[in-house]
């Protein structure tokens, strides 16, 4: 009897602790288990969306070319980066500072290559002067996938982008993010709610037909 009491107390304490941990976990991220909202992984190359999509105003689809034509928007290949970064090797202010310093010291400005961009060049087997070095090998660039859906859900970028859904509707204000973070919970209820409200209100004033059949996403 006594021993039983001890076990019951221990069990209750354990339960209370578990419940507390769980409540804390849920309240911190406002997410149920399996929901990845707030996920903001550190990337191999610290690519700032804020600069490219925000300050420079480059269209999302300039790099994510699959968004209109394919199921996946796609992570751009290195040759897309090189369209600009063949010429732009470092942030503008650093280059200007070096130019000014060189004028002051009456010398030729040094070539500045940002360490982040050097990672891109190295992956392509190029040195800091963008010359192919004989020894360097090409290596793949491994990005951390921020927005992941389970394997039994089939999302199609084409259908959404062509229906005028803004990228920001699901991905948030990426143009303000230094590092991309998941801002929507990407759960089924979230998807279906948007499909329902789009059917009722349309997208940007245009009527749409967003199916809520299971086979729209699950097959």
């Amino acid at each position, binding site marked *: 009897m006594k021993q039983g009491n001890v076990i019951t107390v221990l069990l209750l304490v354990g339960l209370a602790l578990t419940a507390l941990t769980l409540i804390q976990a849920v309240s911190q991220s406002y997410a149920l288990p399996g929901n990845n909202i707030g996920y903001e992984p550190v990337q191999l190359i610290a690519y700032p969306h804020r600069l490219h999509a925000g300050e420079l105003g480059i269209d999302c689809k300039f790099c994510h070319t699959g968004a209109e034509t*394919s199921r996946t928007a796609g992570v751009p290949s*290195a*040759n897309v980066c090189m369209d600009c970064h063949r010429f732009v090797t470092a942030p503008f202010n650093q280059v200007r500072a070096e130019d000014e310093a060189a004028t002051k010291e009456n010398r030729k400005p040094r070539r500045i290559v940002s360490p982040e961009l050097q990672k891109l060049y190295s992956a392509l087997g190029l040195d800091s002067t963008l010359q192919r070095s004989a020894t360097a090998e090409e290596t793949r660039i*491994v990005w951390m996938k921020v927005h992941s859906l*389970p394997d039994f859900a089939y999302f199609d970028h084409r259908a959404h982008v062509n229906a005028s859904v803004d990228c920001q509707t699901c991905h948030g204000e990426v143009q303000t993010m230094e590092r991309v973070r998941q801002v929507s919970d990407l759960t089924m209820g979230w998807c279906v709610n948007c499909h329902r409200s789009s059917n009722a209100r349309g997208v940007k004033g245009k009527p749409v037909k967003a199916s809520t059949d299971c086979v729209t996403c699950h*097959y």
Partner: protein
Amino acid sequence: MNGHHTHDTMEHDNETSRLDRRDFLKLAGFTFAGVALTGCEQARVEKAIPYLIKPEEITPGKASWYASTCAGCNAGCGILVKNRDGRPIKIEGNPDHPISRGGLCAIGQAQVLGLYDSQRLQGPQINGATSDWPTLDRTIHARLREVRAGNKSVRFLSGTMTSPTTLALLKRFLSSFKDGKHVVYDPISRSAILEAHARTHGIRALPHYRFDRAEVIVGLEADFLGTWISPVEFTAAYGSGRTLEGNPPKCSYHVQIESRLSLTGGRSDKRYAISPSERVPLLEALLALLEGKSQSAKLPHFSFLNDLAGRLNSARGTSLVVCGSNDVASQILTNAINELLGNYGKTLDMQSPSYQHQSNDNALQTLLTEIRGGKVGALFVHGVNPVYDLPKGREIGELLSRLPLVVSFAERVDETAQHAGFVCPEPHPLSSWRDTEAVAGVVSMTQPALAPLENTRSLMESLSEWLGNRASAHELMQQEWRKSVFPRQSAEKDLAAFWNRSVHDGFAAVAPRPHRTEKYDSRPVQNVASPETGADSFELVLYPKVSMGDGRHAHNAWLQEVPDPITKITWDNYAILSEAAAKKLGVLSGDIVRLSFTDPTAASGIELELPTWIQPGQKDSVVAVALGYGRKGTDRFANIGPRWFEGKPSVGPGGLVGVNAAPALQFLNGQLLYERGGVRIERTGRHQTLACTQTYHSIDTPPLLAQGSESRRPYVQYATLAAYAEDRAAGGGPKHESRSMWPEQHEYKGAHWGMMVDLNACTGCAACVVSCQAENNIPVVGKDEVHRNRELHWIRIDRYFVENDGELDVAHQPMMCQHCANAPCETVCPVLATVHSEEGLNQQVYNRCVGTRYCANNCPYKIRRFNWFDYLHEDAKQNMVLNPDVTVRSRGVMEKCSLCVQRIQEQKIEAKKNGKKVADGAIKTACQQSCPAQAIVFGDMNDADSFVSKRIADARRFNLLADLETRPSVGYMTMVRNRTNKSDETPHG
């Protein structure tokens, strides 16, 4: 729920381990904490790795298609290879290809799995050890110098070769030796047809058979819709003569005379069973009747020939008699009959003949004699496996071991390659450049859909290396095309443009090389040698199976698990006996029998031990055995399927899948003969389980439940041509009154997808089954699981037999999910895992399914499949073949045909993008695309102009089990046989 389960167990085990309520609570507490902790775990970290430099034509997530040529057999069908993210995942027929016209058979469909076989050789081998190409070439060059110095003969033994480039290179290679010869044989030989034409028409050629031009077709042991020469092409051509269009309805008359029931025999309008020894007398009798030398057939059991001769006589120039036997006497008589009927130049094309079989059995025998005589200094073996597929294979193997130089080009160390000093593996056809001229004037192109996965080299490249002028296959082909293909056409002026168009289209139509045929010579007919007649024993017939052919694809698990169209057996070959013969012998299906016979050329008698299969339609005096089984290396399938305590291997007693029947072949009158008399059969007393799929998933009403006529429900509607000509709705069952209790609730405002299957076109060839398997990631479950009624094919082809006055009719009915409007499965699912879509699809949501299997129980069509296990690929590399657009189902969920909803979605999204409606025919389901007979039509039933709507409006349309008011979206069309008696018969299960 978990807790409850523990509680149950606890009470059962009361005596042995005393668990009380508190212990249970403890356990429960830990479980809860565990669940909570797992829930807090971060999701799996996924990575995205883009191309470093993306090829312009590739968009990740979008399929690219490459036109190519199937290399599954010699027929040379055009294919389109679907690539996703750089790897081929599906093969479809090329609709523009002049030979195959869009269809593709089961073997062709399964080729993509073979590409990812990790047991393919990874590189060249010397004396059984892995080597590299430079070493191998140095050694072979040295050996070839020795052969040249020693004045020894060089022989190149291969299967039929249709590649112009390879043939040209081979000619140059062999002419560099004093005595170099190319010897061609096929494991399933058609040599007698060529031999007969050499004698009667002065040209050793295989005619191009034109079944589309034939109104009266006589098939004599020729399974031309299943395995004979070019089944996909012949099925399409045969079907085009039986469309039932117009008035009177277009329908050829087809008589099949054969010793075992073949797929073609099942389709025929009239079928007669004969034994092989009756074949020559029958042909002689038919010839005599046609010549007017006799008024009626002398032999009483050939009396049907009188009517047949009359029909043939009235269809001169539009009839076709084909004989599948490899006996020259029979073929000469067949030629005489076709010549007499004026069919040459009409239904048999000799001007642009077929190159699909060039076997020369005489030359093969000469070669074997030469090898025995020690005359041969070097032997190259390509595309054939003589140790396996010829009689006395073991002796051949020993002879090969003694030759100074044997080079094999096998993809794996097969029966022959293990006797070869050098193995030079070729890349898989899906990753190589090749060309094929299967029928004169049609040069098909094979282009690589991915880089070779192994360190391989094509035959062309090897030959060019040994000729001292190394070039890539691509260069070699372009050189040859400039010389011999480009000049044969005039449509393109520029070689580069011609080449590019041919690569794009997958083929080039050019002028056939001129063929000189001599005037028909009737002399050989008088010289027909009478074959030996069987004594009072069995006659053995060896045949290729639809899915296995000559056995070269025995390592393909998809093909091993395809049910045979007639016997419906998977994973085995067997001795087929008629019911009467089995009764006489006292054996039942599955009982192992011993076939024994003496061969005059062999020292001792030969024996084969095989399980029995009792088959209606078989001649009583005949025992039939499939070739292509018992291949070396099929012991890999011992552990295919789930491994659990009751699991049994998929291999037979010998450790291999099936038994090799090739030792029973014989050389007779110069030909490799696939039949022999004097076979004794005895019981062994042992039994072997055969995994047959016809005996379960039966939609028959059990006799106890059936009330009166309902025990024999009409599943396949069937009419005679005479009845159909009078009433297009002939054969239809009584119209049942609608007394539905279902509310009318589905509106289908947009599209309403539907499918129609024309049973008059379907031959039961199982191409759709494998196509569906490839498209929808359907796993192989293994023989034991098939035997436990757990095979997972989404399409089951039901086979029905009906016997009318001793005549046997066969009907095939592909059964996939019927996508009922009033679906019985939907009402019983407790978790709404199967629900109706607004476009009429019966959706199966895997991630919702909890595996109650209520739906499968309630499905009257028995088309639902349950994952009893996680059915993994036997070879992990084969995961590369998975279609990324379809979920891989895990253990415990139900699955079934989705009408290829991933294809529907793809086309819907593309159409929406372009602001258009989905065009009729834009969506093709996998089964429909592959069907050589074009029996399957899919489309929007709400669109009155769609093809499927027109089929639904056709009087031949019927729905299966319509009295259940399920209102299926899949319908069938009445089968019509060209018969004159108007009584309507409906086959039953």
